[in-house]
């Protein structure tokens, strides 16, 4: 990372993908070729995207470190920076400060069965780990991906879903909240579908991300299925500014989500003060 922790790398948007009415995916390449070549990160680490003159926001790098043609970020339009990002096109310049944060404990997950449970934009941090595991398939046991959104329209990574569904070495299950014309997959809330799938906690790790209400009920479902607190991994959203543990807003007690997180096991979260 740069000497000056606030100084972003100039980067070019090489592709902008419209995922849903309010989510776009941005593929970014650092302008400095050498830095791009040497760029490394862990799945789950985040980056700050700058729109100069507007500001900076934090997003997970949802491409995989095994596929380094570009860095990918998926952005929901919710505020000032994200609105301006949505107006940008391929060829436009942004700033990138990355990687930041801790990432998933990939080493500890080797040899385990993996259960991904993603809701809405919460699929972004799972995507990076999911692709990483597909590219290192032999290192992991059974892989299940349960991905849900409110409606099919709200589903991100639509272009990739057929490939994921078609693979025989992973079990991909899609669900939406309610019946929808033309929808051929599951209908039901994620926690209910999860209970129905009933993945075994034996030698398994569950990785989940999504809106707070989904997380709440997914945790209950996982507990019901017999998953222990340290077998459940999630990644947190917090308002961030500096991204390097100084500016003081993303702490939960003594832990700074931008440095000590955003990835935590449920066991780690339980040991922290309850301020999610």
């Amino acid at each position: 990372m740069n000497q000056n922790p606030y100084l972003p790398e100039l980067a070019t948007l090489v592709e902008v993908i419209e995922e849903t009415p309010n989510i776009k995916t941005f593929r970014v390449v650092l302008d400095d070729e050498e830095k791009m070549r040497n760029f490394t990160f862990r799945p789950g680490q985040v980056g700050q995207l700058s729109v100069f003159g507007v500001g900076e926001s934090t997003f997970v790098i949802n491409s995989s470190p095994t596929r380094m043609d570009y860095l990918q970020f998926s952005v929901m339009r919710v505020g000032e920076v994200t609105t301006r990002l949505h107006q940008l096109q391929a060829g436009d310049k942004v700033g990138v400060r990355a990687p930041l944060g801790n990432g998933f404990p990939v080493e500890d997950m080797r040899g385990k069965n993996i259960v991904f449970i993603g809701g809405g934009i919460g699929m972004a941090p799972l995507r990076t780990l999911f692709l990483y595991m597909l590219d290192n398939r032999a290192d992991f046991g059974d892989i299940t991906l349960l991905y849900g959104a409110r409606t099919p329209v709200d589903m991100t990574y639509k272009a990739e879903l057929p490939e994921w569904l078609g693979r025989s070495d992973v079990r991909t299950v899609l669900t939406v909240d309610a019946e929808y014309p033309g929808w051929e997959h599951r209908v039901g809330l994620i926690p209910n579908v999860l209970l129905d799938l009933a993945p075994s906690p034996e030698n398994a790790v569950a990785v989940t991300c999504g809106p707070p209400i989904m997380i709440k009920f997914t945790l209950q479902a996982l507990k019901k299925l017999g998953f222990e607190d340290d077998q459940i991994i999630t990644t947190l959203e917090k308002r961030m500014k500096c991204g390097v543990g100084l500016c003081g807003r993303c702490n939960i007690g003594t832990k700074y989500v931008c440095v000590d997180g955003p990835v935590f096991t449920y066991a780690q979260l339980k040991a922290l003060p309850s301020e999610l």
Partner: protein
Amino acid sequence: MDRFLAASQLTALADDLAQTGPVLAPIAEGGSVVFRWYRPGMRIELSRMASTSPKAATFPQTEPLLAVRREGEAKTPTVEATLPPRSRTVVLGCRPCGARGKEIFGPVFLGGVHDPYFARRREDALFMAVVCTRPETTCFCTSVGGGPADTVGVDVLLIPVEGGFVARSVTAAGEKVLAHALFAEAGARSAEADAVIAKANAAMPPQDDFRTAPEKLLARFDDKDFWERQSAKCISCGACTYMCPTCYCFNITDDDLGLESRRIRTWDNCMSYLFTLEGSGHNPRPTKAHRLKNRVSHKFSYYPTIHSGTIACCGCGRCIKHCPVGVDIRAIVRAAQEYGG
């Protein structure tokens, strides 16, 4: 090394120092005393503790971080870090607590991450602190490790004696300043200065023992009723954080100036609702009770837990004295410590 500065020479010293670098001094202005970048003609006021802290010397309220420039229609901007210019900065006439306050930044800004803006300002700053001869009702420096003649973070201690100050160097940089021609032999005044310090220390009220504060505050974390009562009178403004010598939380925002823009760092306030408001609309600290809990716990629990017991407070009492409604941080910590007997 001890030297003597006649009270009548204080202005001359400020005038002289200001010729070779910025001088931050407490200035009487509109009935208030605030730290200002000194210019000849300003009145330095040492009889009252300044309302604001000398924090601006090492952590200005507005710090330009980056300058971004775009030429015409070109899509590629140039992005430059706007580090502060190198120049010795003298803080003349703060109190020892104010000099100590910036030391709280060290483990954070110069620890795991190196903040080049703070680092440069810290290296270039020289603190000449006046010994407090008498505590105010809001002073509690001795309860958080400081004292009226504390030398932590101080380069030169100015000890009030008859007719002026004994200037006692604490660091090598401080000793260099004392070579200035305006300083005279201290002679017998050194002994007088020692007596002043002894008397000042003796005048301090009994200390609070905050050693159990980290665990006791954490024990109250989920006690909504406790924090609602403690924060009932708080109006959730930022007077406490902005007057505080140790509060370091900041915001980063961009100012768009057409073809140019700049990214600035500004003081931010953990008592503000927007401080933690997330993009989704969720706010982990939605009420003033949540926010005051974080403010007090950061200073007296989280920070000391992370940084080997050091309390992130210098005991200057500004947060109490300038709170529009008299919230007393000492009383809140004590209430947590004494909770349940």
